[in-house]
């Protein structure tokens, strides 16, 4: 009894048979590039999967969804969703020995849309991701000075005081929003190109170009550094972090489980989405990487190992980040308390040391009873460590505001700053390799460039074009555009593509044929776990996540957070409504990749019908002629 599948005639004509694959392997024929060794392949995949999200998205999710309790949905969905999808992409790439476009076109010509969608997504993500790398480079360049430029406010024009915007917020906020982004108060005002970020932008694309100039020949060498260096730096930061005061309170806060969070569906949804995006699935890059392997490479083992590494890295990075956040929160708490104590000492002219951290509460209570008016006049601030710890920030805010502030409080700040930004740079760059691979291979499969074009030139053209289009993120309003692209460009389309990938492999390619392929490649059929997850569990999970995501995204109002010095709640970010023409852009970003799948299918269908008609016409014409 074979699993139901849609009829797919002509599949055998489009793909190499097992004997042909073996022969290809023996003769070492074919001009497909190859990995120099297994380590390069593993490091490239690890680098692609482990990215900035592991450092600045996962710790935030962990902390906001009940700490240690978040591990439970994360691990469950890692096993049920992440590993099966990863194994599927590895296996199909290794079997069909083509990039994303080639694989889906080979399975069925109508599925070419999936490849196109993957290419569009890779393109969208590459555009804005490299701008983040440009910002990281800007901070890296600025780390070679003591004191760090974001540790103090600059003086205003007539040197009487600090710049007002900086005084009202903080030096780190000011450096990020004014000195780096020079952000405009709203997305409609573009503010012009910021030349310093433009230089970093060009630098980022040049570094990416030199690393991908000959495809995996050069990225394979680059990943030896970009994939391993982050782990070294994380370990250094862990050792440094644990020796700082307050680090353990940070870790405790991160991992304290709050099991009530497990009852909320948003926790599971966020966990599923995080697992999914963290694995960089549906970009097409993993399929390409896997297709450069030898046919009998053990892709099952690879999928499990890389998933485990990805999961462990996320937890490790979260621990490191929260030691530093714990230190920062404790520092803030201590300052708050000292400020209050000083105010009390000054107001009541008491000797120094009469109020300490221990008797603070009692003293305040006593003084409140005896001199309530004076206490009110002082305006004491409430100092609560938990509030400081739960100032949970994610994304660029974590890296460029919270963490940089913590670094300024550590001795030898420039050193830590340099290390931190090198780590972020490596994490981002290795993820970019995968995205560029997804674009490069699709462009080659689409035969956009003539075959005689050297690979260096194709990569150069792609990098130059992306650099030009990416100039939108170098504008004053670039930060708003970036979060727009980030929120709508990749999220929904990726879910749709991944869902279609699963359905295509299981039902159109045929799960029985797929099982036989895997048996041919690694020597044994995939066991019950893989069967259950590919056929039922993973598609269901993907479907639920997709539906929930669509529902939440469509129902929420389209707001963005703006840095507006004129607003009342400054320095808190002000929530503004997007202008109407943004809806068009959101539709282009999210809709075009998703709609490319049915659209391409219809196009191919019409093409085929047209060809049939013209064939029939030729045959009937020749019959007429004979008669």
């Amino acid at each position, binding site marked *: 009894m074979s699993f139901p599948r849609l009829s797919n005639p002509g599949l055998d004509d489009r793909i190499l048979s097992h004997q042909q694959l073996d022969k290809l392997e023996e003769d070492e024929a074919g001009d497909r590039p190859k990995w120099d060794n297994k380590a390069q392949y593993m490091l490239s995949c690890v680098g692609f999967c482990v990215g900035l999200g592991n450092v600045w998205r996962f710790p935030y999710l962990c902390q906001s969804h009940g700490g240690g309790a978040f591990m439970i949905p994360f691990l469950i969905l890692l096993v049920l969703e992440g590993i099966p999808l990863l194994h599927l992409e590895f296996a199909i790439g290794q079997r069909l020995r083509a990039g994303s476009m080639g694989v889906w076109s080979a399975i069925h010509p109508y599925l070419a849309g999936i490849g196109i969608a993957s290419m569009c997504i890779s393109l969208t993500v590459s555009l804005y991701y490299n701008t983040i790398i440009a910002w990281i480079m800007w901070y890296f360049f600025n780390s070679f*000075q003591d004191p760090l430029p974001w540790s103090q406010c600059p003086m205003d024009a007539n040197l009487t005081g600090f710049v007002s915007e900086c005084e009202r917020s903080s030096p780190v906020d000011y450096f990020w929003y004014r000195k780096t982004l020079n952000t405009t108060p709203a997305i409609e005002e573009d503010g012009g190109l910021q030349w310093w970020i433009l230089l970093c932008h060009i630098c980022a694309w*040049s570094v990416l170009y*030199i690393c991908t100039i000959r495809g995996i020949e050069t990225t394979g060498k680059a990943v030896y550094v970009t994939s391993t260096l982050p782990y070294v730096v994380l370990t250094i930061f862990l050792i440094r972090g644990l020796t700082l005061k307050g680090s353990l309170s940070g870790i405790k806060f991160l991992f304290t489980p709050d099991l009530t969070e497990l009852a909320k569906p948003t926790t599971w949804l966020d966990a599923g989405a995080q697992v999914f995006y963290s694995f960089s699935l549906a970009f097409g890059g993993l399929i390409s990487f896997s297709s450069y392997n030898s046919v*009998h490479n053990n892709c099952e083992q690879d999928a499990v190992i890389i998933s485990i590494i990805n999961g462990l890295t996320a937890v490790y990075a979260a621990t490191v980040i929260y030691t530093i956040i714990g230190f920062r929160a404790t520092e803030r708490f201590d300052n708050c308390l000292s400020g209050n104590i*000083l105010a009390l000492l000054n107001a009541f*002219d008491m*000797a*120094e040391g009469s109020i300490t951290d221990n008797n603070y509460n009692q003293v305040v209570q006593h003084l409140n009873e005896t001199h309530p008016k004076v206490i009110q006049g002082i305006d004491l601030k409430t100092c609560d460590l938990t509030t400081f710890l739960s100032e949970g920030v994610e994304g660029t805010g974590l890296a460029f505001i919270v963490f940089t502030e913590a670094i300024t409080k550590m001795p030898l700040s420039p050193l830590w700053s340099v290390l931190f930004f090198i780590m972020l740079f490596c994490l981002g760059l290795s993820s970019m390799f995968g995205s560029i691979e997804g674009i490069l291979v699709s462009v080659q499969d689409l035969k956009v460039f003539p075959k005689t074009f050297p690979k260096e030139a194709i990569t150069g053209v792609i990098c130059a074009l992306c650099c030009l289009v990416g100039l939108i993120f170098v504008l004053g309003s670039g930060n708003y555009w970036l979060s727009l692209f980030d929120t709508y460009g990749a999220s929904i389309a990726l879910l749709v593509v991944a869902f279609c990938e699963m359905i295509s492999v299981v039902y159109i390619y045929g799960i029985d044929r797929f099982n036989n392929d895997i048996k041919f490649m690694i020597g044994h059929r995939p066991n019950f776990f893989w069967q259950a997850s590919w056929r039922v569990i993973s598609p269901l999970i993907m479907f639920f996540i997709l539906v929930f995501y669509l529902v939440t995204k469509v129902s929420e109002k389209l707001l963005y957070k703006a840095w507006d010095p004129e607003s009342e709640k400054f320095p808190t970010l002000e929530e503004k409504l997007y202008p109407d023409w943004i809806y068009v852009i959101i539709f282009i970003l999210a809709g075009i990749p998703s709609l490319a799948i049915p659209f391409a299918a219809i196009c191919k269908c019409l093409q085929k019908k047209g060809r049939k008609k013209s064939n029939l016409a030729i045959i009937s014409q020749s019959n007429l002629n004979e008669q």
Partner: protein
Amino acid sequence: MLDKILFLLCLASALADERCMPDTPHGFQVRLSIKTALGDEAYVWNENEMFLFRASLAFAMRNHMNGQQFEVSNIIVCNETMRVSFWFIVTSPLDTSQLIDQENVEAAIRQSRNRINSAFLLTDKTLEFVDILPTLATLYTHPTPPWLIVFGVVMGAVSAGIIIMLVSSVVQKKRKTNRKPQDEDDDEETRVKTVENGDAHDGIHNMSFSEDERFTKM
């Protein structure tokens, strides 16, 4: 006798009290945070330290108002508290009934702030003259921003790398096209040779490339 001493004391304190009092328009309040600044090495605030303070303030006044010989007695201190805070006023050396106005005193303190601080091993924050704002430390502005230097280094290295890679691939291609016509000639010659030799042996079968290794070892 006792009455006279008591009367004199009262007079003296009355004289001092009149002009030196909290919120006086002619003086300033000073706050010292010695324990915060020095921790374990903090010294105890006593009469001698107060004498040093008055002397350094007299020094500051002398520096500012050239010619006038301020003495320790010209600095009058009152309202000392356990916090270690007190008020002071400055009398003119020429006429003790005359008080020096606030602007002059402030200017004098600003001028010699550093010296006064160092006498007590304190800083602007821990030796606080209430209502005299501390001089703000300006960030050192570099002639060339350091980030530009690092950017130049990185960009230079990357550009050099790109040029090297492009040149090397062009050279490689040229070498390939030069070798190709040569290789074709060599191939023809060897083929002719083997036909001429007419060897029955096809060569020794190489056992190292066996077909057992189907699965790539990690």
